[in-house]
């Protein structure tokens, strides 16, 4: 099952310590080696972003920074895992690195399953996919 990990924290905590960056890189490398991480990304400052809001039947664009927001999304990662417990375990490991390498930092990793096909995906792999019966 595919899971999205969304990391949230207050903005303007300054740059993360190098030790944390190294530890996260190592964890990412391990996840890639374990074949479980499909992709990841870090998000830039909200000052360079914007919000497009639909409210009161009007669409408006609000430029960043999102100063009123207590927490912003800092990054995400997508994993292919067997269970919610495995997803939680991955997120715990990620947060443990923050605890160890960035004293005082607070935030959360939201673990969310992603929608798959309604029916179990019939993952037909025919080597010979051109033949008419190919799905």
């Amino acid at each position: 099952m595919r899971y999205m990990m969304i990391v949230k924290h207050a903005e303007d905590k300054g740059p993360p310590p190098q030790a944390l960056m190294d530890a996260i890189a190592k964890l990412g490398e391990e996840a890639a080696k374990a074949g479980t991480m499909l992709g990841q990304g870090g998000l830039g400052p909200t000052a360079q972003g914007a919000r497009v809001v639909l409210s009161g039947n009007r669409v408006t664009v609000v430029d960043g920074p999102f100063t009123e927001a207590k927490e912003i999304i800092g990054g995400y990662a997508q994993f292919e895992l067997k269970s919610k417990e495995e997803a939680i375990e991955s997120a715990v490991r990620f947060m443990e690195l923050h605890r160890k390498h960035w004293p005082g930092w607070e935030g959360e990793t939201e673990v969310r399953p992603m929608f798959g096909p309604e029916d179990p995906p019939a993952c037909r792999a025919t080597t010979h996919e051109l033949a008419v019966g190919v799905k």
Partner: protein
Amino acid sequence: MPATDIHRTIEAVWRIESPRLIAGLMRIVRDLGIAEDLAQDALVVALEQWPKSGVPDNPGAWLMATAKHRAIDHFRRNTRLERKHEELGRELGEKEMAVPDLISALDDDVGDDLLRLVFISCHPVLSTEAQVALTLRLLGGLTTGEIARAFLAPETTVAQRIVRAKRTLSEKHVPFEMPRREDLAARLSSVLKVVYLIFNEGYSTTSGSDWMRPALCEEALRLGRVLAELAPQEPEVHGLVALMEIQASRSRARVGPSGEPVLLFDQDRALWDQLLIRRGLAALARGERLGVARGSYLLQAQIAACHARTRTPQETDWPRIVELYSALAQLAPSPVVELNRAVAVGMAFGPAAGLELVDALTADRTLENYHLLPSVRGDLLKKLSRIEEACIEFERAASLTNNARERTLLLDRARACAAG
């Protein structure tokens, strides 16, 4: 944390850690049965202690340390036993090793151990079924029950298969090592074959509603991705990963609302998983960059990539696909590849050219019970407006398939011909 939650956490940790644990233990005990037992022992200790003490900060390292101690105990027991044997005037085995060496051995990088574990699980002394079961059990962390469900086999059969496989490896003294250079290509191809077989098994003709089957696709993909990191210099590994990623990208589009198969050209390409396509194309590029002659997985991945890159079926680069199938037919000649080449030729150069190749295959008779042959032939005949002959071919194809939904689809086409 309630006890049930702890147990589920332990189960998750076990899934993540068990292959590395077993691989690391194999390095010292050199026997799969013992390595697995020691790893299981560590799991049992975790199940006893963690509900009381909480899950340790680094559960993987904890399990490894616990298993290490068990391994050392095991070793000491055996040494004592060997000393006794020596006292009895028997020869001391050459395997004796000092305990400190064991510890340093266990602290080394486990990547190579994992790769050795893959190679031993797919060792040619084992039958294909045994290779598949062992790989899923040791590398995938699947339980015997899960493997049995996935392959629609009784659990006792699978358990027996695994026990026998381990015994065979032990009796034949199969070493826990990297294959020799001259054997590497053959051994690697047997590993890739096992992974691809697991992936293909993920599609079920009879029990598509069973959740274990899609899980097999995912497991095979994961194993492939692991292999790509363990053996990054092997182009065929990347070829296989690319092939599986791209094929898996279509899983949502392959089945219609009532479970009926949807043909490649009728698929809603918006349903293709772009993340998997991107990953597949990246894996393909990685394999191609290695710059040696293309193997059969890379070629198949290149074919799959042709479709993945194309937004509409009409834009398909058929001459390129013909070229790739011709290369594949030269490298690994097979009537099934030839049939696919015929389809591509039909699309690129017209149905008459395709039919010529199909007729040669029909005369050859190797595929005489293969439903896709009359199905393809029917398609080409229909395009040539030879409707009556096409109708007969679709009916024949329907009578040859074991898949009920596919049969319905083919009979529909036969009826459509008859009506049209």
